[in-house]
């Protein structure tokens, strides 16, 4: 096999799934996602749903932090807006007598749009400040938004500290009231999000984001309006998190403000760091690690200590410590994340007969 660039058209050169390994990988994942709802047990579906939801949110954060270089420690707020938004929009739609089967087609985009608008507002500081200041500004926005949701004054709408009961979506009459059915929706959305967002980076929009990350005055010279593109980046990432929040609302029976606090924001950032910023598969790898490590811990602990009470008491703090160590460990030893590791593996494998042209 000859290992060289044999493309005959520019179109072929611009493709992203340009060798058969990548294509089969994508189809393989799709097949896995299709088989899971049929064959997997409830526990696996549960974990898979969590992975799917978080992947969508982290893909959004990846656009903002990984590709545009704007740090945000407050993205859980947008997930919250998506979750609360979709529930409230469902109530409103029912009040307007819109048929159940059509509601998700209005409420999901509606929740995403709401999150995007708030994203534009939260993104305003990014036009003035960078780095730590932006991180603290987004952190503050997270605290403020959750505070407003919990506020008694808004409790008639938001349910205050006790939250809201969520709605089961119905798509053209197919009511998704089991986790298995919601998983199908989540899987489809996750695939769509990853593929669509990646398209951004084949066009000038994505390139503009990367330019802003590297050197923003250079980007300005090239005609890239920082105002337009920084805010667009915030809006896209907020919309993705809003979608994740909407799916969360469908998945869990109840939404509570405490689900969207700082810890969730930190989990999103951790997943991004562990997976690799600014790469398509980064969010996927990162979320797998962040969601699966507590489960792995559960397995290990019950193998060592059985079902004792002490083990149960230790589990939550130990989980926290491991989470922190994951972040610290990756930053110290593999700052570019797991995609860097997979790059190395694939480079080593780039020999006959596995050569990729």
């Amino acid at each position, binding site marked *: 096999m000859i290992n060289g660039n044999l493309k005959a058209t520019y179109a072929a050169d611009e493709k992203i799934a340009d060798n058969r390994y990548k294509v089969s990988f994508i189809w393989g994942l799709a097949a896995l996602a299709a088989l899971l709802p049929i064959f997997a047990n409830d526990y696996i579906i549960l974990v898979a749903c969590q992975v799917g939801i978080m992947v969508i949110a982290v893909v959004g954060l990846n656009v903002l932090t990984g590709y545009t270089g704007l740090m945000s*420690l407050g993205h859980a707020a947008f997930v919250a807006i998506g979750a609360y938004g979709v529930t409230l929009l469902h109530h409103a739609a029912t009040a307007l007598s819109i048929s159940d089967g059509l509601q998700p087609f209005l409420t999901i985009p509606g929740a995403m749009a709401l999150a995007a608008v708030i994203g534009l507002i939260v993104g305003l500081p990014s036009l003035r400040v960078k*780095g730590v200041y932006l991180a603290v500004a987004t*952190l503050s926005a997270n605290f403020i938004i959750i505070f407003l949701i919990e506020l008694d004054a808004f409790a008639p709408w938001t349910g205050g500290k006790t939250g809201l009961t969520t709605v089961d979506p119905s798509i053209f009459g197919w009511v998704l009231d089991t986790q298995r059915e919601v998983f199908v929706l989540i899987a489809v959305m996750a695939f769509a999000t990853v593929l669509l967002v990646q398209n951004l980076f084949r066009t000038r929009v994505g390139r503009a984001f990367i330019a802003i990350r590297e050197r923003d005055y250079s980007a300005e010279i090239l005609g890239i309006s920082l105002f337009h593109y920084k805010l667009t980046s915030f809006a896209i990432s907020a919309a993705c998190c809003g979608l994740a929040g909407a799916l969360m609302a469908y998945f869990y029976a109840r939404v509570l403000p405490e689900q969207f606090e700082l810890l969730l924001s930190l989990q999103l950032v951790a997943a991004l760091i562990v997976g690799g910023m600014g790469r398509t598969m980064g969010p996927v790898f990162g979320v797998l690690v962040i969601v699966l490590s507590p489960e792995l811990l559960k397995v290990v602990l019950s193998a060592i200590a059985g079902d004792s009470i002490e083990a149960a008491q230790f589990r939550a703090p130990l989980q*926290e410590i491991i989470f922190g160590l994951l972040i*610290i460990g990756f930053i110290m030893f593999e700052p570019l994340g797991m995609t860097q590791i997979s790059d190395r593996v694939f480079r080593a494998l780039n020999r006959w007969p596995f050569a990729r042209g």
Partner: protein
Amino acid sequence: MGQFLQFAINGLMSGAIYALIALGIVAIYKATRVVNFAHGYVIMIGAYLYYTFAVLLPAAPWFPDLLFTPAWLVEAKASAQMFSPEAAWLAWLEKLPRIVFGLICAIIGSALLARLIERFLMRPLLGQSNFAMIMITVGLISVLSGAKSMIWTGDAASVPHLAPNPALRFEVFGSKVFIFGANLVSMGLALLIFAAIVIWLRRSSSGVAMRAASEDQSTAYSMGISVPRVFANAWVLAAATGAIAGAILAARDGVSPALGLFGFSVLAIVLMGGLDSFVGVFISAMAVGILEALAQWQLGGDWVEITPYVAVLIVILIRPHGLLGQKEIERI
């Protein structure tokens, strides 16, 4: 008017404690250019250490009681009126050995923790991007929080005040004002430590070394300043002042996991004042203390927790580098 004054004084007292905590964050930033997002959790560990050495250990059967109980004190306590200033003084005196022991051990313990963090987490990252350093402190948040839950399981508990705590009543401008003595002393202590450290940083050679290292690490190194030692000193200073602040806070609010979240409000305060300006941070700490008190007075207790965050957002939009921070000029 009286109420306003009451709240304003409470605000000033809170502000002083904020300033003391903020001191640690600014010291670390000035020396190492790292913003320690985990500082709230460092002071939380300091508070828990104080709790351990001032309350838990003395309560253990195998440990000395550490109470000061000469005969005259026991008699005086028995005969003193409940809630009188004398009772407060005597109660404090009785517990004094515990307080001192607890405080000293808390400071030493925090200092050790700080040295460990600096040596094993921060120093390997010298020269790496800002983002990496910040994210390490973010990871540290979870590590410290988890460690605390493992060692001290999570319920709130109370610790002795650092100073006698009589309820002081007096009249100002014709209205009654009510202050807890311990809070007043804490405020004085916080202000004193703040001033002492700022003066030390300006006058002493270690202070000058710290300022040199913050400007330009490689030049400071070539001038013979041990930059790693400066880093370690900054972290130890931050942890020590944090332990004292943690003890004060724990005595006031009880020792609980919520102390960690406190750190984020102080972060907001530090950014409001300008990351590298002690004066700016002092001003914003006092300002936020008073704003919180006003918020509590007019809007109710809920709004207190959100005040620093709203304040920092407003300040950043007007002055992006904080009230007195230095603008970093990027060379194009």
